[in-house]
């Protein structure tokens, strides 16, 4: 097959294999034999995008249709972008190596807010008009999905279709309709109007947003008779019968995650109040462990990977976890295949399991404590006590582990300096716990790696009305914790404060923020989640140039009666429930999880999952 880029150029860029495709299990079709060409775009570099489970699922889901060819594109690294622009090469798909401009759909998965400039850049590099209203009839429809799609307002001027929910539900219907409309010679505008009949599909251009003089939203009104007032996400109810690929794309260069991925369940019962995923993916829907064991067998056989990773928001909450873990161990422990268990709650069962899995090598243990003090953990409804953490560490230390990873957040609502000091003290206590073991039983030194992220209030969480700390405040708090730590065995780092600030702006941004994104892109912003690429000065300038204030979006508390930019979107969880949760948070009251006691959050309306478990 002809490559879109000559060898002469490929030899001059870093990791040329990012751009040539040809991976194991890549789908090959003749583009002229299909009715629909779909470009699945991940707006980050190849190695990141190829590690994303959603891509693996949707790639094969769409390609199982004979009439559709789903191909992939990633954001070219700046060295490649420069060469492509210099040589007039448009952004192309890895499969056919053809420009995205001639595709029917260009779809972006939005996994984090700081990829938005890459979305614009990829459109521009493909020779596609950036703004929806400028695109011609022969240009692709731009569709986006993923967790950031639940508030895609900053991208409202650029995308045609926002898909709210899980891809397996509506794509067949969308593509069938598209084919029908294309064959009948109808226009894109007619197709978009037809999509208004489908819940879960949000078409920004059919909604007008008006603002008050103070910049807050006055109204969000449908401007088409068929446009619904509220668009509700769609989800899969039966996880055992839903499509899951029997193979995975296996890259030929090292990517972030090289492994077989098993998805245990979607959603989370916990309801940690800071966690967007915990609300937008409700309710919990599990796969049966037999289904998972079958999927593991296929994927291992067809990939050749030597690691199986269990993915979910909280592995220990999987109801058949012992059966699954033992099933995997029985099958794979003698076949040189490792099993990795992220997001595991540390108790005696899981430690015993980890002992079995990792025989000799001891990886580090991870605790997502999120806050240092019990009071603040109650505020965020993080159901983990200091006693849990310390006894977990003790068990692990007795079992031979000597490395502990701790995750915290800075700037949580109601946080005081005492809460921050508690972070440092908790880390010190873990080290002291290690020294309780008799000296002869601890041959290796203990290390505690603590890292803190900066809290970003997200839409559809109880803290969606709260103000975010300024980056200056994050900096002070990070330093406070660092200075408080006494033990030299504790290493403390915290996330880029300015990046977190920008993330805060984007997460709760409205349509006006799109102007700043466009301006920032024009000034050269790309790969904003990459420290070496992030340029906060340019972003400040972009907001200034477009007459917007970052503080307005990030650092301002909203009142309950303010219209939020995402108020016309429903994830099932009611605004009333979120407000109640916020009130409980401020009183440091915890809320039982979904299996303990239903709180009537609203997710029951989907008709499935944990809401209906006996």
């Amino acid at each position, binding site marked *: 097959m002809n490559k879109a880029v000559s060898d*002469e150029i*490929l030899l001059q860029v870093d990791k040329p*294999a990012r751009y040539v495709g*040809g991976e*194991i299990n890549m789908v090959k079709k003749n583009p002229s034999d299909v009715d629909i060409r779909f470009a699945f775009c991940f707006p980050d570099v190849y190695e990141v995008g190829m590690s994303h489970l959603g891509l693996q699922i949707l790639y094969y889901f769409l390609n199982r249709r004979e009439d559709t060819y789903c191909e992939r594109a990633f954001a070219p690294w700046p060295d490649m972008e420069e060469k492509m622009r210099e040589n007039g090469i448009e952004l192309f798909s890895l499969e056919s190596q053809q420009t995205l401009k001639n595709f029917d759909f260009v779809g972006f998965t939005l996994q984090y807010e700081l990829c938005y400039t890459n979305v614009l850049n990829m459109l521009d590099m493909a020779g596609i008009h950036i703004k929806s209203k400028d695109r011609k009839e022969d240009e692709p429809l731009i569709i986006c999905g993923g967790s950031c799609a639940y508030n895609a307002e900053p991208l409202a001027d650029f995308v045609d279709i926002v898909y709210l929910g899980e891809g397996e539900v509506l794509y067949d219907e969308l593509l069938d309709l598209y084919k029908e409309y294309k064959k009948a010679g109808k226009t894109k505008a007619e197709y978009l109007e037809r999509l208004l009949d489908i819940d879960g599909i949000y078409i920004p251009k059919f909604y007008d947003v008006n603002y008050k003089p103070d910049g807050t939203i006055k109204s969000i009104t449908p401007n088409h008779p068929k446009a619904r007032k509220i668009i509700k996400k769609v989800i899969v109810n039966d996880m055992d019968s839903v499509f899951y690929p029997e193979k995975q794309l296996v890259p*030929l260069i090292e990517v972030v995650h090289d492994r077989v991925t098993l998805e245990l369940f979607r959603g989370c019962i916990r309801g940690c109040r800071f966690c967007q995923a915990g609300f937008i993916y409700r309710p919990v829907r599990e796969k049966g462990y037999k289904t998972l064991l079958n999927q593991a067998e296929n994927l291992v056989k067809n990939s*050749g990977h*030597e690691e199986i990773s269990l993915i979910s928001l909280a592995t220990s909450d999987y109801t058949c976890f012992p059966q699954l873990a033992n099933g995997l161990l029985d099958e794979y422990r003698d076949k040189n295949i490792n099993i990795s268990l992220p997001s595991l709650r540390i108790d005696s069962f899981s430690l015993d399991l980890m002992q079995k899995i990792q025989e000799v*090598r001891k990886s580090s243990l991870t605790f997502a404590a999120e806050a240092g003090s019990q009071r603040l953990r109650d505020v965020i409804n993080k159901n983990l006590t200091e006693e849990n953490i310390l006894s977990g560490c003790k068990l692990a230390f007795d079992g031979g582990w000597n490395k502990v990873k701790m995750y915290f957040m800075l700037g949580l609502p109601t946080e005081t300096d005492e809460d921050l000091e508690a972070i440092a003290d908790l880390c010190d206590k873990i080290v002291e716990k290690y020294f309780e073991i008799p000296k002869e039983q601890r041959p290796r030194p203990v290390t505690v790696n603590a890292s803190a992220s900066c809290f970003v209030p997200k839409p559809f969480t109880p803290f969606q009305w709260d103000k975010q700390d300024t980056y200056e405040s994050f900096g002070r708090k990070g330093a406070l914790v660092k200075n408080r730590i006494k033990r030299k065995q504790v290493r403390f780092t915290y996330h880029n404060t300015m990046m977190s600030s920008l993330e805060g702006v984007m997460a709760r941004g409205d349509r006006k923020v799109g102007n700043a994104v466009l301006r920032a892109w024009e000034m050269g912003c790309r790969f904003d989640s990459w420290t070496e690429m992030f340029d906060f000065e340019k972003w400040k300038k972009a907001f200034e140039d477009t007459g917007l204030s970052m503080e307005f979006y990030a650092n301002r508390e909203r009142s309950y009666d303010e219209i939020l930019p995402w108020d016309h979107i429903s994830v099932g969880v009611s605004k009333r429930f979120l407000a109640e949760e916020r009130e409980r948070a401020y009183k440091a009251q915890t809320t039982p999880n979904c299996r303990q006691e239903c709180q009537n959050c609203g997710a029951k309306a989907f008709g499935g999952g944990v809401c209906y478990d006996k």
Partner: protein
Amino acid sequence: MTNDNVRYRFKFSKGDNVKFIGHLDLVVAFQRALKRAEIPIAYSNGFNPHQLVAFALPLSLGYTSTGEYGDFQLPYEADACEMKQKINAVLPDGMYISELVKLRSGVKNTMASVCAASYSIFFDYDITPNDIEVNLEKYLGQESIFVMKKTKNNTKETDIRPDIISAENDSVNNNGIIKVLVNAGSIKNLKPDLVAESFCGYINKEYNKYKVSYRRNDMFMKDAEGQLISLIDGVGEY
């Protein structure tokens, strides 16, 4: 480690599709292919068991090859021909095993055996078949050929003439091609780009390193008489 393992050697090609896969990634890709082919590969003991597969001299990024070699071990004997078919069915497009043999006992591993390699240098249009025809012999006739060779920390002037065993004009139509046999391996190793660059310099033409392409044709070891033979010649047990 006790070694009752059965050893196999395979010769494979690396085509245009996979020439941007670096050596370490290639090793991993191969290991995964062996898994997919369900070859009962032996693993090392120790803290971090790995497949017992080893490759001869790494190939530079961007080079194609028709003569790459590797050895692997199995805990018991399996049919070589059948394994070759199974592996070929699951290798990435552009990689192909042409030969696979069970090794006689006592054969040294590929990396320890290799002492020479043949490369084809495909020039861009600036270097014509005529340039090669007229100048190659004179170029080789020089007593020494000094080039700047990169080492770990700096570049130093090195004479590469002793490492060029032979070279010939292998041009096809209008495409200037030099086929060169050079010392290769862990003791003495010459990369063909230094030959290409110094040849261009010798005839006062510009060497454009991104426009010249390279193919490794084969790798060689010495037989009992000191003759160069392919790494897979005479090593098999039938």
